[in-house]
């Protein structure tokens, strides 16, 4: 048996790595970076994240911890909109541009955004 404590600094638990998918890590890092830049305080963050978790629960989310970073992403989008950085329309425009970029990128190649993806 491998003793997890014998591996210094490995932040794993019995259920695997702390981030299950790269996007979870990106979303996590964005919140830390925006806080460091002063866009919001931790109490604001906790209140928004708490509200998003409650909202998801009310909508039937089992809230078992597996969907935690989805709530995290919702909270990020909401705070970014509330702070006037990007409204829902801007988010949707970039969302569609990335979707377009993915569609035209051959499978296996890195997906990159080009100006014409916005057209």
């Amino acid at each position: 048996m491998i003793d997890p404590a014998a591996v210094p600094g490995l932040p794993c638990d019995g259920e695997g790595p702390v981030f299950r998918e790269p996007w979870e890590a990106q979303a996590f890092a964005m919140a830390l970076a925006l806080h460091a830049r002063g866009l919001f305080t931790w109490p604001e963050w906790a209140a928004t994240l708490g509200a998003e978790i409650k909202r998801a629960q009310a909508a039937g989310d089992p809230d078992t911890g597996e969907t935690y970073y989805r709530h995290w992403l919702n909270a990020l989008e909401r705070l970014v909109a509330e702070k006037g950085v990007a409204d829902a329309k801007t988010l949707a425009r970039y969302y569609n541009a990335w979707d377009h970029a993915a569609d035209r990128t051959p499978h296996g190649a890195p997906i990159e955004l080009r100006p014409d993806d916005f057209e």
Partner: protein
Amino acid sequence: MTDHDHDHHDDHGSELSETQLRVRALETILTEKGYVDPAALDAIVETYETRIGPRNGAVVVAKAWTDPAFKQALLGDATKAVAALGHVSKVGDHLVAVENTPERHNMIVCTLCSCYPWEVLGLPPVWYKSAPYRSRAVKDPRGVLADFGVALPKETEVRVWDSTAETRFIVLPMRPAGTEGWSEERLADLVTRDSMIGTGLARKPGELAQ
């Protein structure tokens, strides 16, 4: 957000899930507006994936077990004491260390979301973020402890600390018997993540993997 159909599976294009698209959209906007730097984001992820974990907390606990002055400093102002050890990632305002004794066992939870002492324990385990733990830890702490295989004497009081964005807690578990004269390094191996959340106890010398 879009009515675009993501179920197509042609052989030529790539696909990103709805969530991946949202994350990329957000990151691009924030980068273009100068709010984030992709390299800095990568550095944050790298730090949390490889460098910050329960081992940081274990070092703090082992030092408190062997150094009475440090223990006093830790219980007085954990933020300052932990920073003095070089754990610099400061998230939130106050870190409070709560000491387990034969009379009192401490457990931490965040009933609102999942505030957690990141700088000493890394990222929270899945169960810590789950609704069952968040609600049951307060209502039925002994039941939760039983689920984790921990049975405490009846006379031990169980105290549950609800974390907030301003104040987060770390449990200082009891030093196991039979470890007199051990080095800090050896003692740190006995300190599990769960023992610092309060859902576990420190390992006994005999439970250490060979």
